[in-house]
């Protein structure tokens, strides 16, 4: 650093103490060139300092963590889209608690504010419920179960008239379903 001041302008190397400077050999005779050992008093013991390689930051852990974060957010985004529907704003309840055990054979039924029903991405009216649930019923039969074992999870919009939810429940009852779950959002 001190020696760099006496160099020509095109030499931009910084000379740090303890590091060998390639230019210092050829210009040793110059009186202006200056070695760091000149600063030491005569009776000081000279310790040979090892030449350290240039320090490089190890980026591997940082990249590991960053990729993990990316993977985390990607997975989370995919999950949240599968069960939710943008048109449905759930009512809130202070008693909402995530279910502990997985629900047996869940069938998620969304009910929008206009009263239309969304099952698996298909928007249908109340009249189309029977034909839409027919494949689910046959799947239940294939597994040796009945409609009584299935759980209908109702995700109703907060402003939908309660009578329409009753209609939905009674239609499902006619198909043999018994167990219903009214899904609510946690109150924050």
């Amino acid at each position, binding site marked *: 650093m001190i020696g760099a001041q006496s160099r020509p302008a095109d030499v931009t190397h910084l000379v740090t103490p303890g590091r060998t400077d390639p230019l210092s050999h050829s210009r040793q005779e110059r009186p202006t060139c200056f070695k760091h050992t000149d600063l030491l008093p005569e009776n000081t013991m000279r310790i040979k300092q090892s030449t350290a390689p240039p320090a490089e930051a190890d980026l591997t852990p*940082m*990249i590991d963590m*960053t990729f993990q974060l990316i993977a985390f957010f990607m997975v989370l985004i995919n999950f949240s889209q599968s069960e939710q529907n943008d048109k449905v704003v759930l009512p809130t309840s202070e008693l909402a608690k995530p279910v502990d055990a997985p629900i047996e054979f869940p069938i998620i039924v969304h009910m929008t504010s206009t009263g239309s029903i969304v099952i698996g991405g298909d928007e249908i009216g109340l009249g189309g419920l029977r034909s839409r649930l027919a494949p689910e019923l046959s799947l239940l039969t294939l597994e040796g179960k009945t409609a009584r074992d299935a759980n209908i999870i109702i995700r109703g919009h907060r402003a939908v008239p309660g*009578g329409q939810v009753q209609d939905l429940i009674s239609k499902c009852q006619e198909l043999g379903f018994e167990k219903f779950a009214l899904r609510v959002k946690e109150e924050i």
Partner: protein
Amino acid sequence: MKFRHSRSQHDKTELSMTSMIDIVFLLLVFFVMTFKISAQEGDFNVKMPLQESGAPADNTQLPLKLRLKADANGNLSEIVLNDTQSFGTDWEQLRGYVVQLVGDQAGPTDEEGPEVEIDLDTNLHYVHVIEAITAVTGYRSGNDIVRLIDRIKFAKKRE
């Protein structure tokens, strides 16, 4: 024709990390920004088999009939319990009454515990139905949930 081969340099090739980190951070920022923090969801279980003629009567010890009246806009106008007790639109009063009724019992059981039948006006907003279920199902004390009535069913739809 004579090709002059330039002397290839066998220097140690170093990967440029900067561009990769740029892209990775860009991706990270994208996912962080698009991530929507969604509140946890829970369920209220309603077991409602289709009532058949000649079905056995309910075996509940304490039948409660909750009537929810709505105004023309679908908002709640009155809460009536067992056709006699009116609570206005105050859910806390209803909850207090249910705590008195149920509190001295051993707690809800699956088969013989108290049961609430909710009878609502058809135009009543669903959010009020959930409020009613919340009020009779339990209450939160600290981090714990005290359960009051677990059995809930809907009355026949009003015409």
